[in-house]
Structure formats: structure tokens, C-alpha cells
């Protein structure tokens, strides 16, 4: 078990799949599936390893620091890695259903997705600020490409906007990294954490890095690029963007805060981030309630959920940290499920306008069930992963006697109930019996599977929480 280079495999498996996919275009879907499954197995391997032995570090190709690249997996990384891998497999499978085999879109989607996944896994396992930059860029650029696979003008222009915003964010981040390196001469997170002190350089780096990542994450009010990109992309892309890729920048920010800034700079900037996160929860939830299109609704819901995760900054502590991690993974499942369900609806009726979905549930029962179950998690109602996360965050807020964070989370939950049920209530309108739609139920089953995963996370949180606690801040 220990002999197998699981960490490297999690990166290599999707990378190989992507490269082979570029060459063997006919078998690209099968290749993607195989490599997704291998990645999942490798991720599981990492998780088992971390669960048993705690944080693991490996130097790639035996090159030592500072020039070599070191991979590091602690509990948080392992947990997110596994969760993303599972969701990734589902998305791959869904894409196989969604895209016509051999189509142009399929040929470009699978390799890009696997490249993105490569970047994603590398990002999760990165241990220095520059590697984080590179992997984040890899993920972002491939994501932009993925958005553009839609091919229509809306998708292209929103991809372009996404790219420009992301470039700006990356550059801000990189300048921050440059400042840090200039001041301290190291890039490794732990080493930086050990040497970083108060001072103008640190302050500047903090401001630049935080702002850059806030732009990419996105943190309210810098989220302007996101809804259009999510809504205009092909469904599998929306699912993986909001479920998986969308958490990257946040992950980087958490890593850097945990490793570098958290201790010396005190709580004030963390509270600022929390305030923006809270504002984002409320803002995006209200906007989500007002959307006419289902995909936009889910997109805004994702922004709101991200906002909730940003609350771990002011609540920093073991329980809140676990809550944040839990929200990341359960939202990964739930958001993907919701997007897949929305995609199915759009595919069947040709639109995704919420007010015109009345009675559709009779024709697409499984789709609506999947959406409803994912909605339960998004609302943070028990039993679901969303509930567990909310519980951990709210409880921490009360433990810190800062009830206002709890209030924001609870109000956010109420608003999310409002938009989820806005979709679901139409399901109960009786519809005249129309022709049954002949189509594959695979996409429904996949959405349902993801939604059930989100629920299952709420039934047995013990194991994931134990994993997240490995190497977590105390």
C-alpha cells in the first residue's frame, strides 16, 4: 500500500487519459472513463494512506526543494481529492451520455476535462505558493476551454470574460507571491508560515493574493463573470465548474491563510472576508430567487454556497474548518446533481424557464427527485451533507458568541429553500397525460446518484470528518 505512488497517480492518471485522448479521438470517451476511474482509485488510495498515517509529503522525481516539486496530502486535501474524484467520475459518465459519441464537442470536452482534473489534483496536492499558481492556471485555462466547447456565441463570449477576469486574478495573485518570495525567499507553505511576520510586504501580499483569489473564486461582489459562464456552458461543464473547479481558488485561499497569513495577521481581514461571504450569501440567494432560468438559479445558488464556505475564515477553528470542508464536498455532489437535472430538463423541453415547468415532473419524475434531493442538501436540511456542514458552522459561531454568522447561514438556508421550492412546486401541478418521452434514463440516474451521495454524507459524517481532521489546524 505504501509503496504505490498514489499521490503522483492521482495526477498522472487524468494526465495520461488527456494525452491519449488527444491522440485516440475515437475512443476518447472510454479512455476518459477509464482514467476517471483510475483517478478515483488513486484518490481513494491517498485517502486511505492519509487516514492511516497522517500528512504525507513526496518529492516528485526525487528533486529536492527549492527547485523540485513537492506534493503534500493532508486530511483536507485527501478528503477533497476523493470527493472531487467521485463527482468527477459521475461527470465523466454524464458527459458520455450528454455528448454525442465522436462529436466535435465530445472530442474537445474529454481531454480538456481530464487536463482540468490533472490541474485540480495537482493543485490539491501542491505545497508551495507558486505551484498553486501554476496548477490554478492550468485548471482555469482548461475550464475556459471547457466553457467554450459550447461553441455558440454566448458560450464563447462568456468564456472570454471568464478568462479575462481569471487572468487579472492570477496576476494579482502572482504579484503577491512575488512579494512574498522577495521578502522571505521561500515558496513552501509551511516554510513561509514559519518565517512570515507582520510588515508592509506581508500586508501587500495578503491584499493582492486575497483579492486575486477572491476574483477567481469568486467572492461577492466580484462574481460578475460567473453566472453567464455557468449558464452558457454545456451542462457537464456547468456541473463540473460549479461542483468541482469552482472550489479551487477558495481552496488555495484557505491553504494560504491556514499556512501563512492566519496567525500573524489576526482576525480583522478574516472578518472582512467573512462579511463579504455573508453579503454574498444573502445577495446571491436573493438574486437566485429572482431568476427566470433554472441554470442561472443554480449558478447563483453556487455563489451563495461559496459565500457560506467563506465564513470559515472568521470562524477559523477545527469544527468550522471541518464544516467548510464538508460544505465543499457536499455542495460538489449537490451542485453537480442540480446542474445535471437542469440540463436534462432543458434537453427535454427545450428551455429551462422556471415558470414554465409546471407538471413536468410527471414526465421527468427522476429528474425532479434528483433536483429535490440535491436541493435538500443545498438548503442544509437534514439528512444531508449540507446540514452537517451547516451544523458545524453554526455551532462554532455560537461557541464563539458570534451569532450573526449563524444568522446569516440560517437566513441563507431559508432563501435557498425559497428558490429550491420555487422549482419544485411546479412539480405538483397535475399535467395532462402526454406522450412519454423515450430517452435514456442514465442522466437521471447519475443525477440521482450524486444527490444521494449528498444525502449519504449527512447520514455518516463520521468517517469524512475524521479524515478532514488529519492535519487540520487545532
Amino acid at each position, binding site marked *: 500500500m505504501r509503496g504505490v505512488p498514489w499521490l503522483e497517480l492521482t495526477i498522472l492518471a487524468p494526465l495520461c487519459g488527456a494525452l491519449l485522448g488527444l491522440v485516440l479521438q475515437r475512443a476518447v470517451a472510454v479512455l476518459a472513463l477509464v482514467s476517471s476511474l483510475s483517478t478515483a482509485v488513486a484518490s481513494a488510495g491517498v485517502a486511505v494512506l492519509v487516514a492511516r498515517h497522517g500528512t504525507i509529503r513526496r518529492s516528485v522525481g526525487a528533486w529536492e526543494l527549492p527547485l523540485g516539486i513537492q506534493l503534500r496530502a493532508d486530511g483536507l486535501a485527501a478528503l477533497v481529492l476523493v470527493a472531487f474524484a467521485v463527482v468527477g467520475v459521475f461527470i465523466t459518465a454524464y458527459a458520455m451520455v450528454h455528448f454525442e459519441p465522436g462529436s466535435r464537442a465530445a472530442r474537445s470536452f474529454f481531454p480538456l476535462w481530464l487536463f482540468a482534473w490533472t490541474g485540480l489534483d495537482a493543485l490539491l496536492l501542491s505545497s508551495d505558493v507558486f505551484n498553486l499558481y501554476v496548477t490554478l492556471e492550468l485548471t482555469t485555462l482548461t475550464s475556459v476551454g471547457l466553457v467554450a466547447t459550447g461553441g455558440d456565441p454566448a458560450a464563447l463570449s462568456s468564456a472570454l470574460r471568464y478568462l479575462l477576469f481569471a487572468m*487579472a486574478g492570477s496576476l*494579482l495573485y502572482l504579484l503577491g507571491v512575488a512579494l512574498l518570495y522577495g521578502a522571505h525567499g521561500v515558496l513552501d507553505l509551511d516554510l513561509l508560515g514559519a518565517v512570515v511576520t507582520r510588515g508592509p510586504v506581508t*500586508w501587500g501580499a495578503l*491584499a493582492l493574493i486575497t483579492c486575486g483569489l477572491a476574483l477567481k473564486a469568486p467572492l461577492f*461582489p466580484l462574481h460578475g*463573470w460567473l453566472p453567464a459562464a455557468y449558464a452558457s456552458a454545456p451542462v457537464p461543464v456547468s456541473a463540473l465548474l460549479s461542483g468541482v473547479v469552482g472550489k479551487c481558488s477558495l481552496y488555495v485561499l484557505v491553504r494560504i491563510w491556514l499556512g501563512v497569513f492566519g496567525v500573524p495577521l489576526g482576525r*480583522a*481581514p478574516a472578518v472582512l472576508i467573512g462579511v463579504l461571504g455573508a453579503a454574498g450569501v444573502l*445577495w446571491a440567494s436573493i*438574486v437566485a430567487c429572482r431568476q427566470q432560468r433554472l441554470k442561472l438559479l443554480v449558478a447563483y445558488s453556487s455563489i451563495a454556497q461559496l459565500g457560506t464556505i467563506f465564513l470559515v475564515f472568521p470562524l477559523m477553528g477545527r469544527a468550522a474548518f471541518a464544516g467548510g470542508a464538508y460544505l465543499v464536498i457536499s455542495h460538489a455532489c449537490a451542485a453537480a446533481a442540480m446542474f445535471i437535472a437542469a440540463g436534462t430538463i432543458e434537453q427535454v423541453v427545450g428551455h429551462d424557464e422556471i415558470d414554465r415547468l409546471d407538471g413536468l415532473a410527471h414526465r421527468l419524475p427522476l429528474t425532479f427527485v434528483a433536483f429535490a434531493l440535491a436541493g435538500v442538501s443545498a438548503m442544509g436540511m437534514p439528512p444531508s451533507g449540507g446540514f452537517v456542514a451547516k451544523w458545524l458552522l453554526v455551532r462554532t459561531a455560537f461557541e464563539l458568541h458570534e451569532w450573526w454568522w449563524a444568522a446569516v447561514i440560517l437566513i441563507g438556508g431559508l432563501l435557498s429553500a425559497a428558490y429550491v421550492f420555487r422549482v419544485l412546486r411546479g412539480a405538483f401541478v397535475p399535467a395532462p397525460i402526454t406522450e412519454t418521452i423515450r430517452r435514456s434514463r442514465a442522466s437521471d440516474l447519475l443525477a440521482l446518484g450524486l444527490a444521494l451521495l449528498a444525502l449519504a454524507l449527512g447520514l455518516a459524517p463520521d468517517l469524512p470528518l475524521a479524515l478532514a481532521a488529519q492535519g487540520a489546524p487545532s
Partner: protein
Amino acid sequence: MSMRAFLVLTVIVWTSAAWSAHGYLRDAPNRLSFWVFFALTMAGNLGAVLAPDVISFYVSYAVMTFAAYGLVVHERTPAAFRAGRVYVTMALAGELLLLAAFVLLVGTAINLPMGQVPAAVAAAPRRDLLVTLLLLGFGIKAGAVPLHVWLPLAHPVAPTPASAVLSGAMIKAGLFGWLSFLPLGHGTLGTHGSVCVVAGFVAVFFGAVVGATQRDAKTTLAYSSISQMGLATVAIGVGLSSPASADAVFSAVALFALHHALAKGALFLGVAVPVGASVGRRRIRALGMFLAALAIGGAPFTSGAAAKLALHGVVVRSSAAPTLDWLLSLGAIGSTVLMVRVLALALARNGEAAQRSSAMAPWLVLVLFPWLLIVAPGARPLFSWAHVWSSTWPAAIGVGVGLRLCQRPPARVPAGDVLEVVSVAARGLKPTLARLLLASQAAVTRFRTRRARFLARWTARIGRIDRAEAALSSFGAVGALALFLIVVLLLVVVPR
């Protein structure tokens, strides 16, 4: 021992009424309903008399009370429904008062044997309140003034056999309640006693005066019941204020109840006895009614005389004995007047149920049974000259007054007397109430409109978020906000 009298009267009155109803209702459309409620009421009444403990008493009593509603409204006429409404309202109030009393009395020990009740009441921490509740609660059933208003409405509208049990047996359940629950002989309750005595005499005269103005035999009979129950109330009052008289009160009230139940039952049934064209039957009916009326009037050698003698025995123990005694005799005048009126009204017409054949036999039982009382041991004084005189002169005056009234009947007081006043007052209040209702409806509407307007305003306000959200997606806004974020972050981290 004296409580057995209640069992006897209950059984006899109910049996005869049932017998009589069998014929009376032979072809009535709602027979089934009548018998169901008749049986239920009877079961409740018997249960109350036989109850071994408080809870069984209360349950039986309540069953009786609510089932009797079915008897009151049996005819389904508007008058019946009105009477029913009044009855059920009053009965419910009575039940509530009693429930409160029982709760105060026994707490969770709902199995308190009936025999221990008076002592328990006397020892209860809130004795006075408790006694008040009991007096009022049972007083409603017993038709004590001013709680009697349902009685003259309800008794006459019921089918005659039902009137007989309502007036004959059921109001005795109220008396039974008083006797069983009040702490007679367990301490002095002066105020309660005096109030009872006063209320009792008020009932005696009020019932007689109002009853004398009635045009309907059954209503007059109902007022007679009110008047007669006033006598029992007086006795209870004396018993409350002087513990020494308790035994006498028990036997007097029991005897009185027995007498009144049977005689009143006989009078009510007599109203309905059909005679058709037969002169013989008509004479029998007239004679029977006359005998029963004599008893109620307290003429010598009747059960009424025996009952009054017993009451006299109670009253003399009171501190105000001469006055009370005199008032009793005065009351007897009233009773007789009412009886004359009843006879005149009832005999002027054929039995109301002429077309429905009703058995005469059960009626005769009721007529004749009370006479047994005067041959009972202990009735010796009935035959003393003094007593004969004291019971004759009021009766004679009463007959005179009654006959005079028959020639020139006074203006009729509407049945339900005080209730009419209340209804008129209520009618006066109606516009006010309607205005209040309208005002409250308007307030609700106003609230709803305001809420709707408020919501609409806020929805519109929240709607502005759409424009703001659209603005947030421009490069310029994001750039400015990002710059702002950097500045704020710096401001926040840089120590001052």
C-alpha cells in the same frame, strides 16, 4: 334514607312517561330520535341518583343534561330550537360551574364516595366558593330564580311525556345534587343560606305571578314548577344557615321532591290524555287533574299538605320562623292560583294529543301514587285541625283569586320573562355588535391591504437588486471593487 325518595320518584315518573309516550308517539315521524334521547336522558338521570362516587355522578348527570336537548327540540319547530338553544346554553353553563366545583372539591380523587361528599365540601379549602358554585350549578337544573329562564321555554315545547320527565324528574336531579353535595349539617353558611331563602321566596312568588298570566297550560305548569322549587330552595337555605335542621331538611326536601315529581308528572301527562268523545273519560281526566292540582296547591289531606307540613317543620327551626311560616302560607295561595289556571286552560280543550292515542293507565298511576304518602306513618299531623285549617285557607283564597283571574285574565308576560328583557337588551346591542364586527373586519382588511402594499413595496425594492446585479458584471465595476477590496484589506491589516 331520604335519598331513596329520589330513586323512587325517578323510576316512577320515567316509567309512566315512557308508557305514555309509547302511545303518544305511535305515529310520530321522529320516533327513533325521541326514544334514543329519552333512553339516554333516563339512563343519565338514574345513573346520577344511583352514582356511588363523584365521577359517576358527574358523568351520568352530564349525559342526562345533554341528552335532554334532544327531547326539548324534538318537535323541530322554531320555538323548539329557540328553547333548545336557551336550554343548552344554560345547561352548559351549569355543567361548567359544576365541573369547576368538582375539580375544586375532589381533585384527582375522582372516586370520592358520594357519602363522604358533604363532609369533604365542608372541609374544602375554598368552601364558600365551592358552595356558591354548587348552588348555581345545580340551581340551573332546579330552575332556581333567576337561573330558571330556560325552564318555561323548554318544558312546554317538548312532547308532553318529555315535559313530564323534564319537570317531574329532571329538575329533581338538581335538588338531588344540592342535597348530596351541600354541606348540610356540616357547619354554618349564613350568607349562602339567607340568599337561598330569599331567592327561594322570590321564586315562589315570581313563578306564581308570571305563571298566572300565561295562556298555555304547559307553560303555566312550568312556572308552577319554578314556584314550587322555590319552596325547596327555601328549605335548603334554612339547612345551610342552621346545621341543626339538616335532618329535617333532608326528609322535607325528599318528601317534597317525591310529591312534586309525581303530582307535576300527573298534571303534565294529564294535559295530553286523550278523551275523545267519551264523557266518562273526560270526567276521569278532569277528576285526575283536579286531584293532582289539589296536591300541588297543598290542599288538606293531599301529598302536598304532607310536603308542606314537612317544610313547616324545617322553617320553624329558622331564626325568622314566623315570617317564613307566613310567607309559606302566602306561597300556597300562589300555588293554588296557578292550579286553577292550569285546570281552566287544560280542561277547556281536549287532550292535545287527541289524534294520538295515549294510554290513560300510566297517567292514573301518577295521579294516584302521591296519595300513598298521606297514609304513610308519620303523616298523622296531617289530620290535625290546626293543619287542616292552615292548609285550607290559603287554598280557598287561591281558588277565589284563580277563578277571578280566569274571568279577566291579566296581560301575558312572555314565557322566559327575564330572558325577554335580556333578549331585548341584546337586540339593542346588536347594532353595536354589528358595528364592532364590521370594524374588526375592516381592520383585518386594512391590515391585509397594508401588508400587501408593504410586501409589494419591498418586492419592488428588492427588485432593484437585479439592476445592481447586472451592474456588478461589468469590468469597470469589478475593477473598482477589486481595487476597493485591496485598499480595505490593507486598511484592515495595517495597524494604526
